């Protein structure tokens, strides 16, 4: 699989994400935000971090960078786009995904493991998991409270666009630490080729991380592309 990881000024999980993708067998190119073209790839990843310092609104300035035009075209052509954490925020600001990210209910940065319930296993991103499975993945954000107005929310729920939900499990503090509506931790677009999630699968992708529940996301994508090729 060929993947591109976009580097915005202030991205800081770009390397981590590339490492996880490569370990899963992907061929990864780093792409600079000021470029106006994307290389031919199967998957574009918008990584975590603080693009433009999260100033103004998280993801807002990144969403209007030059690279986002080809990223939107890539998405509109039905190809895969994944946003993790800050990347998810960028995708909502770019209107590739519904909803928006508000500051955590505690107004504090939260770095801790959360348990996620996998709601869909038929997406390219989640085919490595089983529907209903619970996985443990770290969360690290300040603006991670997913919010959408009732109408949008009903549509998302109705169309099955909620991919991951915060779930009960052994942990300190609330299972949904940022106060996201309907416990939403990740959503996709209607076509299922664009997905955003707040927790960081790339941080539980090798045994030294103290967990490997994120690995299947990357290997699932790579296997899919291998079988398609």
């Amino acid at each position, binding site marked *: 699989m060929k993947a591109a990881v976009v580097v915005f000024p202030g991205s800081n999980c770009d390397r981590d994400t590339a490492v996880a993708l490569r370990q899963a067998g992907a061929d990864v190119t780093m792409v600079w935000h000021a470029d106006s073209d994307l290389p031919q790839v199967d998957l574009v990843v918008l990584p975590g971090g603080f693009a433009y310092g999260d100033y103004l*609104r998280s993801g807002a300035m990144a969403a*209007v960078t030059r690279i986002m035009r080809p990223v939107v075209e890539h998405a509109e052509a039905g190809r895969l786009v994944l946003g993790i954490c800050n990347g998810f925020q960028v995708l909502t600001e770019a209107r590739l995904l519904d909803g*928006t990210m*508000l*500051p955590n209910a505690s*107004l504090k940065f939260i770095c801790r493991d959360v348990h996620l319930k996998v709601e869909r296993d038929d997406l390219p991103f989640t085919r490595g998991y089983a529907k209903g499975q619970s996985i443990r993945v770290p969360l690290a954000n300040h603006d991670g*409270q997913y*919010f959408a107005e009732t109408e949008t929310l009903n549509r998302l729920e109705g169309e099955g666009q909620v991919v991951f939900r915060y779930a009960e499990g052994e942990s300190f503090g609330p299972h949904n630490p940022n106060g996201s509506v309907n416990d939403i931790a990740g959503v996709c677009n209607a076509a299922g080729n664009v997905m955003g999630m707040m927790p960081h699968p790339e941080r539980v992708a090798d045994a030294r991380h103290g967990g490997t529940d994120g690995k299947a996301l990357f290997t699932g994508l790579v296997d899919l592309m291998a079988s398609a090729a």
Partner: protein
Amino acid sequence: MKARVHISLKNGVLDPQGKAIANALDSLGFGGVNDVRQGKLIELELDATDSESARKQVAEMCERLLANTVIENYAIEIDG
């Protein structure tokens, strides 16, 4: 020419910051505060010389970057 943009959350959009402020005011003993909303104030220094074109330019800035019109409203004031 100076422009001021007030950005506030739309009705119905959750405001965690406003809520936290309301709670904090309450625990500081300030009574009679019914609602608090937190928004942004963005002040711009523009080259533009007539207020009409300044307003138009700033409105476009709001649409494209300064406000997230899915959840936010904006109001523009032009000085001078």
